[in-house]
């Protein structure tokens, strides 16, 4: 198997060289290889049982959450599934894991557990065929992909769906019903349980992690925001990979499975589609894989419109949620809380505004600013697509910071519910650790607007810095770059001012 053979993997999103901005093709800056700095970490991730050992506790916890959601209290803030998933997990994911550890969530995610188990018929071991035998299928069941043997249908994922558009639309659809998802334990059970079921079915039908790469609604925004992360898996020396005849990282070998995400680790230059499963660390015969610590926001290249629209969707959702869940407007809450308010007309208006805003209005305003910038800059070499994707990139670090600013009060204000549900996960009146009666105690709520403003200022500064850098790379001349990016810089600043109005005004 080679890179082209791997159908379930990095989404193919307009990766033609001419569509790729010339800048930042190879990310720069200092790196610290944690695997070489910390030998114990290298030892740990090289164990065959590593991923199983980190997924299993998470899976058991997740099953407990599902049970609590199905049979526990219907009141969200009294049920562990809602409090842990939508308050604690969400903040840790967006505020800690993504910026500092990329897609580390995918390393421990329980969604693909059963599917991958059925696909590999192994939890820890590897099924491989020694290429020196020369006989590929003799005497063994399953299908050989590369040097690993898999079970199920192992079809290629349809090329037409090989992007993150499905994830974009799926996430937007789920978020349309966010008021139900965030507040009804049973709805959380149905959605999260369905995702596990879907992941299992897709693992049986399609090869590798098609679900994670193309369907998982969480994976979509993780892939985008992981670009900013301070952690990356890369090859330590590209020359070693170029001369490697084994290609175990992609094809698998007796030491491990070929990349389940279908990416060729040797050519990895973005975090988007690396799930940090660490199989490439195990399979590399030259000990050439590195787990690097790097500067924030090092990957700066969007590859296609699907990724750009993910950035728009995420920003629009953050704006909508800030109004609905952090704002004072009761009528908005009635609109989204349709199952209780029965205000179907309001819900339709909200849905239309959310979808229209995410998919048309916000991208339209942005496209207008990009068009204006190109016009003002005068003649240049960069194509419209190159400039658009390059100028959308600043929405990635800005969007992540906006989401952290949105999520911060959810944790600080409602964090004390965590103590309650630890002692009484089902809301049945238990008091396992003596914390069930802890009173609801917001932590420094009056400081939240100040923290939000500080975060947004940092996000804006970083977004503008990366924007000017993108512009310089695209237009080559500083004067042109300055003029070309100016309208987008104004749009970015106005966007942040809107959040200031919501959070501080």
């Amino acid at each position, binding site marked *: 198997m080679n890179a082209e053979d791997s159908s379930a993997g990095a989404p193919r999103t307009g990766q033609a060289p001419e569509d790729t901005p010339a800048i930042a093709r190879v990310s720069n800056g200092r790196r610290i290889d944690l695997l070489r700095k910390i030998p114990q970490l290298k030892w740990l991730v090289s164990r065959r049982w590593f991923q199983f050992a980190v997924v299993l506790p998470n899976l058991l916890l997740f099953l407990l959450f599902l049970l609590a959601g199905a049979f526990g209290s219907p009141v969200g803030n009294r049920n562990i599934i809602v409090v842990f998933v939508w308050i604690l997990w969400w903040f840790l994911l967006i505020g800690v894991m993504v910026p500092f550890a990329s897609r580390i969530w995918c390393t421990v995610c329980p969604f693909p557990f059963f599917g991958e188990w059925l696909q590999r018929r192994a939890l820890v071991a590897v099924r491989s065929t020694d290429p020196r035998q020369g006989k590929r299928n003799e005497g063994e069941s399953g299908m050989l992909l590369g040097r690993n043997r898999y079970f199920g249908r192992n079809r290629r994922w349809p090329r037409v769906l090989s992007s993150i558009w499905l994830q974009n639309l799926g996430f937007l659809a789920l978020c349309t019903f966010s008021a139900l998802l965030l507040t009804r334990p049973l709805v959380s059970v149905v959605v999260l349980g369905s995702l596990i079921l879907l992941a299992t079915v897709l693992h049986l039908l399609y090869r590798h992690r098609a679900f994670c790469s193309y369907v998982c609604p969480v994976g979509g925004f993780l892939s985008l925001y992981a670009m900013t992360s301070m952690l990356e898996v890369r090859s330590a020396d590209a020359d070693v990979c170029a001369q490697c005849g084994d290609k175990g990282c992609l094809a698998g070998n007796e030491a491990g499975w070929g990349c389940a995400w279908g990416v060729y680790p040797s050519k990895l230059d973005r975090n988007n589609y690396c799930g940090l499963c660490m199989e490439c660390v195990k399979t590399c015969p030259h000990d050439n894989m590195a787990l690097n610590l790097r500067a924030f926001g090092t990957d700066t290249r969007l590859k296609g419109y699907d990724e750009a629209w993910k950035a728009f969707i995420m920003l629009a959702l953050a704006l909508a949620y800030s109004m609905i869940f952090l704002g*004072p407007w009761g009528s908005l809450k009635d609109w989204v809380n349709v199952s209780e308010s029965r205000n179907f007309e309001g819900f339709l208006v909200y849905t239309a505004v959310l979808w229209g805003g995410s998919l048309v209005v916000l991208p339209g305003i942005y496209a207008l600013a990009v068009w204006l910038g190109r016009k003002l800059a005068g003649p240049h070499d960069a194509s419209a697509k190159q400039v658009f994707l390059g100028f959308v990139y600043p929405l990635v670090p800005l969007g992540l910071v906006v989401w952290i600013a949105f999520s911060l009060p959810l944790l600080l204000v409602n964090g004390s519910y965590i103590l309650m549900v630890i002692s009484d996960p089902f809301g049945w009146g238990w008091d396992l650790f003596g914390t069930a009666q802890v009173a609801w105690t917001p932590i420094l709520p009056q400081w939240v607007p100040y923290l939000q403003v500080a975060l947004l200022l940092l996000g804006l500064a970083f977004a503008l810095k990366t924007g000017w850098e993108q512009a310089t790379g695209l237009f080559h001349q500083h004067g042109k770059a300055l003029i070309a990016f100016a309208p987008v810089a104004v749009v970015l600043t106005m966007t942040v001012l809107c959040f200031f109005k919501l959070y501080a005004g």
Partner: protein
Amino acid sequence: MFSGKVGYQLKDALIVLAAVVACGAVGYLAAPEPPPPQERAITIRARQYAFEPEVLRVNRGDTLRLSFISEDVVHGFFLEGHDLDVKIFPLEPEFEVTRPSSPDSSERVREVVLTVEKEGKYRYRCSHTCGYMHPFMQGEMIVAPNRLLPASMGMGFGVLLGSLAVTARRRKSP
């Protein structure tokens, strides 16, 4: 002290910071002074999942005579930064006032008097589980002059101007 690339980046950061501070200060000082304090009688009505008024605009130094009524179920009124937590009973004019700083004592009253001494934006939140959307039931008390808003707007423009200045400076750099 610093030279080369690090020194250059440090100067960039200082330019942006100076622009942020300057524009933030302009925004801060531009906020109009509030009128003289006055006494206001305000009835806050609570329902699933909103308060009426949704936004309470007052001035620093105002004395608020607050009364509460719930239109449906038991609600709470926790006012950030003001040591006030109220339990509101459905269709009852009396309510229970607790000071979070001394949570063991509470009293039932028909009115609570509050002098707002700190400017800014303070949210009031329902503090008694009242239904599915309870964690998101909140209103806002904005105490003028709320300098955080104009200051943050100014700082936002400062980031824009600062980054513009830094980019223009790079144009002249070797």
